[in-house]
């Protein structure tokens, strides 16, 4: 370990990843991962496709609703469906997940409802679903902050003697944040049952991943004492296998794991972003050929498990959900003004109560004017 030689980082190679499906949907073997997917028969694979297709359809509806002025903002997940769906499906329902603002596929798998997906972006509420019901924390906007929360949750699991696992999802940009590095320090020091899922989608708004790191992201984790795997983030089989391996490792008391899922943000950072200003069409086209849904479809076709009936079924599910999203957005009712004071504190608080009363009196003044007219 004692060396004065400078480190030459390995060249970043998008294909230096664990993979079980080629771009064209052929099943390939990876001795480390094969055993984790033995039970993934055609039915289960179609289930994963359904989830990914639903995620994509919802994502498209979100973008459309924003463009039509019904949502203030939307952070597209297009292109990242495989890692999101696979990792969430691999978890047990009682594993607790901490996400960023982009993990739509995780919310879909955890049974988020249409309102849950639009009311936040519409600005009606900050948090929509009940974290205790979905076992998913409110999506995090402060980059990387959720990784510490996941580690703390895992430390709580240890103290309860539970066998749940906490999972933290974050992007390549987040790995530069102090919190993410501190999370790895804590996770390692306490051998906490936590899985770090880094979706390296190549971009943090306009900054390419090489600005965040000169070393493959998965290569950093061993430096913290955390085993890691770099997986093809658009290969739903490999993602499933990797996450199952990681969860088993953490759940059995062997400590944290770091997965780097190499994927691509097909859309803009959010609907406020214009990626034509910083990336080119050729790159987009290359990643279109690696599309996670197309790849799984190709594989299902090799199994004779993808037909028009299945397409219709999937389309119908997606359209029905999207319609409910649209209705939720269009019929959303903004809460009464005095609601801004709700839930600042859990216990009675003299300061808030005083302000609420004064603001209520102020608002009542308008009601009197209305009556007078």
């Amino acid at each position, binding site marked *: 370990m004692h060396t004065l030689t400078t480190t030459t980082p390995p060249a970043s190679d998008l294909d230096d990843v664990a993979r079980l499906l080629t771009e064209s949907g052929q099943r390939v073997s990876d001795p480390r991962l094969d055993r984790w997917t033995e039970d993934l028969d055609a039915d289960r694979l179609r289930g994963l496709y359904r989830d990914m297709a639903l995620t994509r359809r919802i994502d498209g509806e979100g973008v459309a609703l924003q463009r039509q002025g019904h949502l203030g903002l939307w952070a597209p997940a297009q292109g990242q469906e495989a890692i999101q769906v696979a990792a969430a499906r691999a978890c047990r329902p009682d594993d607790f997940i901490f996400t960023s603002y982009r993990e739509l596929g995780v919310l879909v798998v955890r049974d988020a409802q249409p309102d849950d997906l639009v009311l936040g972006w519409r600005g009606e509420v900050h948090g929509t679903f009940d974290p205790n019901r979905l076992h998913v924390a409110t999506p995090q906007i402060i980059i990387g902050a959720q990784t510490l929360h996941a580690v703390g949750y895992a430390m709580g699991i240890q103290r309860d003697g539970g066998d749940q696992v906490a999972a933290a999802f974050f992007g390549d940009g987040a790995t530069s944040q102090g919190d993410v590095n*501190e999370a790895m320090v804590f996770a390692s020091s306490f051998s906490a049952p936590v899985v770090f899922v880094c979706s390296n989608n190549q971009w943090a708004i306009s900054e390419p991943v090489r600005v965040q790191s000169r070393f493959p992201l998965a290569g950093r984790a061993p430096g913290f004492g955390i085993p890691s795997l770099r997986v093809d983030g658009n290969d739903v089989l490999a993602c499933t296998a990797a996450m199952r391996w990681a969860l088993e490792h953490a759940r059995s008391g062997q400590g944290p794991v770091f997965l780097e899922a190499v994927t691509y943000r097909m859309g803009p950072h959010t609907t406020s972003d214009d990626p034509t200003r910083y990336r080119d069409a050729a790159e987009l086209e290359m990643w279109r050929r690696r599309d996670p849904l197309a790849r799984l479809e190709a594989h299902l076709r090799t199994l004779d498990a993808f037909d028009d009936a299945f397409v219709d079924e999937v389309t119908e599910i997606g359209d029905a959900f999207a319609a409910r999203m649209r209705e939720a957005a269009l019929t959303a009712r903004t809460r009464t003004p005095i609601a801004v004071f709700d839930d600042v504190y859990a216990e009675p608080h003299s300061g808030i109560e005083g302000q609420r009363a004064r603001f209520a009196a102020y608002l009542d003044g308008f009601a009197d004017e209305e009556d007078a007219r």
Partner: protein
Amino acid sequence: MSTTELTMGKALTAGLRSALAHDDRVVLMGEDIGRLGGVFRITDGLQAEFGAQRVIDTPLAESGIVGTAVGLAFRGFRPVVEIQFDGFVYPAFDQIVCQVAKLHYRTQGRVKMPITIRIPWAGGVGAAEHHSESPEAYFVHTAGLRVVAVSNPQDAYTMLQQAIACDDPVVFFEPKRLYHTKGDVDLDADVCDAAPMGLARVVREGTDVTLVAYGALVNTALDAALAAEDDGISIEVIDLRSLSPVDYRTLAASVRKTGRLVVTHEAAGEAGLGAEVIASITELCFHHLEAPPVRVTGHDIPYPPAKLEKHHLPDLDRILDAVDRVLDRPNSLSGVTL
């Protein structure tokens, strides 16, 4: 009622012990709090008694300490974190302000953050840079947090337990220059019967001037009241105790009686608690005021080197000068155009 004479440090230890014993969801986290018992020995003996799973030596990372406490709160625990020194709280500021303070609001009450953040606080101990800070205003300004500052061992014992039991996050300031000061503590008193954490306390009644202080300056204020007695001036001293929310009912009742207000704190004056209290009292009691309220505070400077700190910290003389001013008696600013 049976009282024991304890230092504030030992009173805090007793409060932590009681909290750990009564609720097994309480866990302590911080740098050096386990084996060492804390650099101020506030957690002395607690790891040996309650085990390393409940009294946790953390890595050297304040944001990590508070962020993992957030995660523990998600899991239903009641974390009590120690920030080793006031000046080291800033790396944790993002987690405190963006997460701890806002998660209850963000989740519309579904997720609670019953986290207590204990901070050895303020100056007057001849310390190195960054070890004498008074950052309370940043947290008072942040909605979603409660902020308290104790001035005596009994309050240290009682209010720490109240803070821990509170379902809201509490930033708990402990004046380090009083850690070794002794006082009577009733260890058997039921915390439920004690004055609520959010109330101020009139620690000395008076009729001529209301003098508001918190933390170590409560003692200085009491000394000032004693000295002023010789001049026939009767000062009512109020220990704020709760910085957020401020107990304006108690303050206003006093100011309506005296008509004159002096507020003192170590923290810099600009945008400090003095500004907040005086603005609010002026709104509530303007027509009862006989003179403009006066603040006696740290200067608007970074905390100075140890040899100069006594010129920065409010002391007896500066407080009495302010009392003279608010009584329209000759004072240091007589004839001076501001």
